[in-house]
C-alpha cells in the first residue's frame, strides 16, 4: 500500500477585521445608547480574552427601559398601522442580511460556536425570522386568533446564551409584528450581537423605544420579570428558572411564555438509513457543542442494530474537528463559559460513577479557553442521572430498546417534553411514533431543523407556548388562550 500524506486542512481563519467591538457598552434605551453603571467583562470563551465591558442593568436602567417602551407603545407603535410596522421589520431583516458576516463573526467571538454555524445557521435564520414576521404585521386578522387581535403592550424578554442573535429574533420579531414594544435582556455571557442589533434598529429608523436592550445578569432579569409596568414575559432558559418566573408572575396579570430545558430521545429503529442516521445523531448532540435545549441527548437504539450504529458512530466521531471557532473548518467550538464547563464535567463524572461506559475520540484541545471533547456514554438506562438531567454539553447517553412501544415508553419517561427524533424508513411507523411521543417538536430522519414558519416549544416541564408560525403569534396578542 502506498503511503499517503494525511490530508491536513491548513488553518482557514475567518478574519476578525470586519467587527469593531467597543471597549465598553451601556444599554440601548429610547433609541439611544445610554451609559450604564457598574460593568462586568464579556469574554471570548475560546481564548478567555476580554472582549468588552458590559453594563450591569439595575433598577434605574430597567425602569427607564420599561418607561421608554411604554411611551413608544402608547404614542407611536400601537397607533401605527400593521402595514407600516411590517415595513420596519422588513428593513431590519434586510439590514441583518447586509451585515450578516459582521454578525456571524461577532457571534462566534462572544459565544464560542464555530464560524460555519454562525454564518450558515444562526444569522440567516435570525434574518429569516424578521422577514417572516414582517409579513404578519398587517395580516393578523388571518392568523386564526380573531378578526382584530390586539397586542399585549410591553413585553419583557429574557434570552439565553446558546443562540444569542437567533433567540433575540425569535422574541423580538413576533412581539413587534403583533404590535408590542419590548425590553430585552440578552444573556450575561453573550450580549454583543444584541448590542449590535440595536445599531440595526437605528439604521432602520425604528421609532425610539420600540426595542430596548438592557444588559446584565440574573438580577437584571428578575427586575424585568417583577416589573409592574410589563404586560408579558417571554423567557428561554433553564426549567429551574422557568419555574421561578412562573411562581413570580402567578399573582399578577402578566402573561408568560417559557421555553425551557429538554432531554430529548433520539430513537433509531432497525430500518433507519444508517449513514444519514449517524449524521443525525452527531448533529443532534454535538451541534452547537450540545448547548441546545432540544438536543438529542438520549440515543435510543433498537437493540438489534445497536452494535452496528455505535461502531459507525464512533468512527464518525473520530472525524469531528474540535478547535478554534474562528476556523472555517471547525465543527465543534468552545464551551460557552467556565460555569457551564464545570457543570458538564460534573455530570460526566456522575456518569462514570453510575457505571456507564465513557468514550471520546482522541482530541487535542487548546490550552486556553473552555473545552470538552465530544463524549458518549453507553450502557445507560433510564435510572441513570445522565439519562434524566439536562447536561447541556456534548455528551450523549446511549440506551437500547426492543420494541417500538418500549422506545416510546422510555422516550416519554421524563418530565421534559421539548423534542424527539425518529429514524426509520417506514412512513407508518414514523407517523405512529410521532403520534405517541409527548414532545412539541418531532424530527423524523433529520434533527435540529428550524424555520420561522414552524412552531417550536415544549410539552410538560419544557415550557409554555410556541414560537414561530401562526401558533407563535398567540403569545403576543390579547384575548387568546395560551398554555
Amino acid at each position, binding site marked *: 500500500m502506498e503511503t499517503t500524506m494525511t490530508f491536513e486542512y491548513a488553518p482557514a481563519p475567518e478574519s476578525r477585521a470586519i467587527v469593531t467591538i467597543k471597549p465598553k457598552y451601556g444599554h440601548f434605551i429610547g433609541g439611544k445608547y445610554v451609559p450604564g453603571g457598574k460593568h462586568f467583562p464579556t469574554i471570548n470563551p475560546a481564548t478567555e480574552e476580554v472582549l468588552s465591558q458590559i453594563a450591569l442593568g439595575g433598577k434605574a436602567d430597567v425602569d427607564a427601559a420599561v418607561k421608554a417602551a411604554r411611551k413608544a407603545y402608547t404614542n407611536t407603535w400601537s397607533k401605527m398601522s400593521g*402595514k407600516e410596522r411590517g415595513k420596519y421589520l*422588513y428593513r431590519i431583516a434586510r439590514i441583518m442580511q447586509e451585515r450578516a458576516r459582521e454578525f456571524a463573526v461577532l457571534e462566534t467571538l462572544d459565544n464560542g460556536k464555530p464560524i460555519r454555524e454562525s454564518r450558515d445557521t444562526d444569522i440567516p435564520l435570525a434574518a429569516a425570522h424578521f*422577514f417572516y414576521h414582517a*409579513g404578519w404585521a398587517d*395580516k393578523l386578522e*388571518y392568523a386564526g386568533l380573531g378578526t382584530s387581535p390586539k397586542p399585549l403592550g410591553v413585553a419583557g424578554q429574557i434570552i439565553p446564551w446558546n443562540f444569542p442573535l437567533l433567540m433575540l429574533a425569535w422574541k423580538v420579531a413576533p412581539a413587534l409584528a403583533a404590535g408590542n414594544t419590548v425590553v430585552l435582556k440578552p444573556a450575561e455571557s453573550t450580549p454583543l450581537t444584541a448590542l449590535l442589533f440595536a445599531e440595526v434598529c437605528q439604521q432602520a429608523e425604528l421609532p425610539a423605544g420600540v426595542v430596548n436592550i438592557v444588559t446584565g445578569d440574573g438580577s437584571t432579569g428578575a427586575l424585568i420579570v417583577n416589573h409592574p409596568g410589563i404586560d408579558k414575559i417571554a423567557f428561554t432558559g433553564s426549567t429551574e428558572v422557568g419555574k421561578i418566573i412562573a411562581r413570580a408572575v402567578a399573582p399578577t396579570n402578566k402573561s408568560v411564555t417559557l421555553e425551557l430545558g429538554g432531554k430529548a430521545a433520539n430513537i433509531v429503529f432497525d430500518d433507519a438509513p444508517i449513514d444519514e442516521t449517524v449524521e443525525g445523531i452527531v448533529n443532534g448532540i454535538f451541534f452547537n457543542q450540545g448547548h441546545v435545549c432540544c438536543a438529542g441527548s438520549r440515543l435510543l437504539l433498537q437493540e438489534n442494530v445497536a452494535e452496528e450504529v455505535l461502531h459507525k458512530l464512533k468512527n464518525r466521531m473520530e472525524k469531528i474537528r474540535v478547535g478554534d471557532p474562528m476556523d472555517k473548518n471547525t465543527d465543534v467550538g468552545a464551551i460557552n463559559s467556565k460555569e457551564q464547563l464545570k457543570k458538564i464535567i460534573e455530570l460526566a463524572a456522575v456518569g462514570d460513577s453510575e457505571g456507564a461506559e465513557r468514550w471520546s475520540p482522541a482530541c487535542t484541545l487548546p490550552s486556553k479557553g473552555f473545552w470538552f471533547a465530544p463524549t458518549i456514554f453507553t450502557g445507560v438506562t433510564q435510572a441513570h442521572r445522565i439519562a434524566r438531567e439536562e447536561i447541556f454539553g456534548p455528551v450523549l447517553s446511549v440506551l437500547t430498546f426492543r420494541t*417500538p412501544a418500549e422506545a416510546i415508553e422510555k422516550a416519554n419517561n421524563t418530565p421534559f417534553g421539548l423534542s424527539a427524533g425518529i429514524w426509520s424508513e417506514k412512513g*407508518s411507523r414514523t*407517523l405512529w411514533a410521532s403520534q405517541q411521543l409527548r414532545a412539541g417538536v418531532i424530527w423524523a430522519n433529520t434533527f435540529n431543523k428550524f424555520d420561522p414558519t414552524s412552531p417550536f416549544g415544549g410539552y410538560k416541564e419544557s415550557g409554555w407556548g410556541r414560537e414561530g408560525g401562526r401558533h407563535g403569534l398567540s403569545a403576543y396578542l390579547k384575548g387568546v388562550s395560551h398554555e
Partner: protein
Amino acid sequence: MSNRIDVKKTYKLFINGAFPRSESGRTYEVKNAKGVFVANPCLASRKDLRDAVVAARAAHAGWNKATAYNRGQILYRIAEMLEGRRGQFVEEIVNITGATKTKADKEVTEAIDRLVWYAGWTDKIASLSGSTNPVAGPFYNFTIPESMGVVAAIAPETPSLLGLIDAIAPIITSGNTVVVLASTKAPLSAMTFAEVLATSDLPAGVINILTGKKDEIAPWMASHMDIDALDISGLSSKKHADIKVAGAENLKRIHSFKSADPGRIIAFMEAKTVWHPIGL
C-alpha cells in the same frame, strides 16, 4: 433653457426575461392626456402570446420549487426596485392619464405597499388554506395547496400600475407563472415595470407582459390549451361569458376579482390531500 433633444424610449414586450418586439411587427400609438404622441408600443400577436406561454411553462417548475421564503424575498426586492424608481412612475402616470401628481403618487405608493403585502403571503398562505384533517381512521391526512401552473391575466385599464400588480402578484405568490396583458390605453407603466422586474432577481419567464388589444388577446388566452387558469378582472363583464365558453375546452379555472385579498392567491391554487396510515 437648453435645447437638448432627449433620448426617447422604445417600448417592447417582456417575454422570458428579455425585451423582444412583437413578431408581427405591429405597433399602436399611445398619446398622452394632452393628445400629444408619446410612443409606439407593440401590438402583441397570437404568436407573442404563444411564446410567452412557452416561457411561462418552462419557468414554472423552478419557480414552484423555490422556497416560499425565496419567492417572498424576490417579491420584496421588486418592491425595493419600484420604490427606488417611484419618481419615474409618478411622472409617467401623470403624463399618460392626466392624473394629478397627488393621485399618481398615491397609486404608486399603494402599488409598492401591495407588493410588500403579497411578499408577506408567500410563506403564510399554506397555514391559512392548508390543514391536517381529522379523518375517522388510523390515517394521517393533510391538505396542501399547490400552484396550478401557467395563469394568464387581463389587467384593468385603470389604475394602470396598481391594477397590473394586483393581477400579477397573487398569481406568482404561490408559485404560478403568469402572462399578463397590460392596460391598452396606458401600457407604459407596465413596460417600465418590466424593467423593474428585470433587475429584481426574478427568474426569466415567471412574469411575461404583453401590450395590445383585449379583444384580440383575451380569446386567444381563453382557447390556449397550455394555460391553466385565467384572471379576467380587467375584461368587461359583457365579454366574460364568451371567454368562459372558450376556456371550457381544457376546463380552465376562470376568476374575476374586485379587490386585493388572499382569496386571489388561493383561487389559483389546487388543494392536494394525502392519506398515510399510522401504525407499526
